[in-house]
């Protein structure tokens, strides 16, 4: 007989919910970015409409974690599992909000043609969503090597962020009439950069979960 089989079953359920909220957020960002590139306002609206699913799942994760603390008195790595679940859920929920923000920018840009191809921004999107996917895998497998990789990818995102901002600002000088769209693109760039930072936070929490020590991977 495995002692506390049920408690470990509950911890597993908590982990599965976290992976689920991560997958939902990944899909949301995928859809939001596709709506941006295809200038599909309808699709952007559905991203906004579906955000409640992520919020609800975050609440469920928090409720489950609170009950586990109240009822099961987790200690050591089990306690970290519960605390980390609450923190990661909060990061991921915030990431889903960035996907909503991008959808809102897409709606504001509307049918107006894009002033330039979204090369850097697309690259940032690809890196940021891969970071989410890897951070989730590192969490699920408790794999700190993978978590470290996520942190390294964040450096690339930050570099692209700097370049994109400079590029957009110089474009703003040339094309004053396109300022509203450029502003939205600046926002989108910022949202993606922040999205990647939260993926890095997830990775940091995986370090804490496994090692029991804190690491600042955003440095």
């Amino acid at each position, binding site marked *: *007989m*495995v*002692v*506390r*089989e*049920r*408690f470990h079953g509950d911890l597993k359920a908590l982990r599965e919910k976290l992976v689920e909220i991560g997958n939902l957020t990944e899909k949301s960002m995928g859809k939001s970015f596709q709506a941006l590139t295809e200038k599909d306002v309808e699709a952007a609206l559905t991203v906004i409409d579906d955000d409640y699913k992520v919020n609800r799942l975050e609440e469920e994760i928090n409720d489950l974690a*609170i*009950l586990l603390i*109240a*009822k*099961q*008195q987790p200690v050591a790595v089990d306690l970290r599992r519960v605390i980390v679940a609450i923190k990661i859920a909060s990061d991921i929920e915030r990431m889903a909000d960035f996907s909503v923000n991008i959808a809102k920018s897409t709606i504001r840009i509307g049918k107006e043609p894009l002033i330039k191809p979204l090369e850097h921004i697309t690259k940032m999107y690809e890196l940021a969503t891969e970071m989410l996917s890897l951070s989730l895998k590192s969490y699920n497998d408790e794999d700190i090597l993978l978590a470290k990789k996520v942190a390294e990818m964040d450096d690339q995102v930050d570099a692209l962020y700097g370049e994109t901002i400079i590029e957009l600002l110089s474009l703003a000088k040339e094309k004053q009439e396109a300022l509203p769209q450029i502003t939205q693109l600046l926002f989108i760039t910022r949202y993606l950069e922040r999205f990647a930072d939260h993926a890095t936070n997830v990775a940091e929490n995986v370090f804490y979960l496994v090692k029991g020590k804190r690491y600042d991977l955003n440095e």
Partner: protein
Amino acid sequence: MQATKIVTEKNNQKVSKNKELVYETKGLNLWYGETHALKNIDLNIQENEVTAIIGPSGCGKSTYIKTLNRMVELSPIVRTSGEINYRGRNIFDKSYQVEELRTQVGMVFQKPNPFPKSIYDNIAYGPRIHGIRNKKILDEIVEKSLRGAAIWDEVKDRLNQNAYGLSGGQQQRLCIARCLAIEPDVILMDEPTSALDPISTLKVEELVQELKQNFSIIIVTHNMQQAARISDKTAFFLSGEVVEFAETDKIFSNPSDKRTEDYITGRFG
């Protein structure tokens, strides 16, 4: 005391339809001589659930559980009023044979109390009293009961050894197995782990969770974390009254009554 009433009534209404009531306690009062130990208790126990009873020493929780199998009557100064219906029949009814009740309602005590006999004979004791003599049937009952109490693997090779040779945790699971051998409907547990080490405690707790699939379990415990870990519903007793009776999730995350909150957070008692 109005708040007490409201919480209890609310909960009683929440009884889900697909589970039957095992015990229905209505307006139960109990006195030890002049001492009013249980005051107007209303409590419904549902089948296939673990119901925990918590509260400070002297709150009446052990008295209540001992009333459920009428063990409390062993004390001559006890008087009761009100009703306890077990499966719809009042256990205080004159025509109710106490032996009949106790065949349905097994009990496990604070200190493991195996008989000074072999492991096998401890389990076979009850069935033999009920007239089972066939060795093959007894063998089956012994194995099934020991498996049910999650101790079979530890004792299967030494069934003829004296039960006193087992550790405290094993003795307690043996007592649970002995209780299962008579195939009861309800298992009452009065502080079943307070004499056990932490790992044995967790084993018994895990076992309780297993057993609720086939039995209804009522457990009195001083250890409120234990109630939190293993029960579906929790009743908080204080000075002979039920202050709050609700889902365990609710009691331990957001109790309705201030006194419950004070007790579980260690602000009094």
